[in-house]
């Protein structure tokens, strides 16, 4: 949220997609922490999510409301990830997800860091962004 709050002019960056990191998260690993760890271990400073599929113990999402960040708690276990998108940058990652609970109800929001843990597995594929 800080990036949007401090930036006053549009920024355009040309570049291309580079290396892929094809990964599996084992149980109880957080998506954002894991994505940042994967980027760090491969020397990638900025990456986009190309694939994210699996299940969470519980989903902890949030969004910016009139009185600050509002939490969305989706109880599991077995909250299914239907889509995952966003950018990975160390300490500044912003990821969004659409998830479904065990009754098939759909929820969406920004992932809270450290609170979205893999239940059985998560297939996570990241791709490096290489600015010109």
């Amino acid at each position: 949220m800080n990036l949007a709050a401090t930036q006053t002019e549009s920024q355009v960056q040309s570049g291309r997609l580079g290396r892929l990191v094809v990964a599996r998260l084992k149980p109880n690993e957080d998506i954002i922490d894991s994505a940042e760890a994967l980027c760090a271990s491969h020397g990638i400073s900025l990456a986009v999510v190309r694939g994210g599929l699996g299940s969470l113990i519980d989903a902890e999402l949030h969004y910016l409301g009139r009185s600050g960040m509002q939490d969305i708690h989706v109880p599991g276990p077995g909250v299914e990830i239907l889509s995952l998108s966003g950018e990975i940058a160390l300490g500044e990652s912003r990821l969004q997800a659409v998830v479904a609970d065990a009754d098939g109800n759909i929820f969406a929001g920004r992932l809270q860091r450290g609170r979205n843990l893999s239940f059985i597995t998560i297939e996570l594929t990241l791709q490096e962004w290489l600015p010109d």
Partner: protein
Amino acid sequence: MTPHFEQRAGVRVFIHGGEPQQPRLLDCEVPASEELRVVLPLACNVAEGLLKVLAGRRYGSAVGRILCGGAAHLSYHRMVTTQDQQRPYDYGQAVVLDGYITFVSGALTVGRDAAGAPLLHCHAGFLDRDGQQHGGHLVLDRLIVGSEPLVLRLCLFDQVAYQVQPDAETHFNLLHPVFQEAS
């Protein structure tokens, strides 16, 4: 070990029946990808259509998204509790829907089975004809395109594959990234 929940730093964790295996993150690096936009026509069986598109291409695995489209018939699964003490959660019986289904979200992995054949793993969200939301594990060989074409985006890569392997910790057969020659 008896599967159970614990609290760590205010977050619920689940201890599975098998011993936790290290490392906790498995990953492989691929130098580049190939991009495909796939449009499947009305009445197409999605698994058959996708496998036909991929046949003859050199790739290890692929990941992708459902961008838009509809279905005339589909079958999906949700997580349920079981009586198996070592695997207390599993997919339940299929939920079957017919007619006027609109996709709103979806993710796809094309992995490999033990024999090297493509294996499709898909989760998706959709609305039925009454506007009711649904989301879960989609069975692509029971998904028939309807109302409008189904558009998917695929990112193919070689030298690495998501290969199905038994997982001693969870007792599921799961997709693991492994280095291998493209087929």
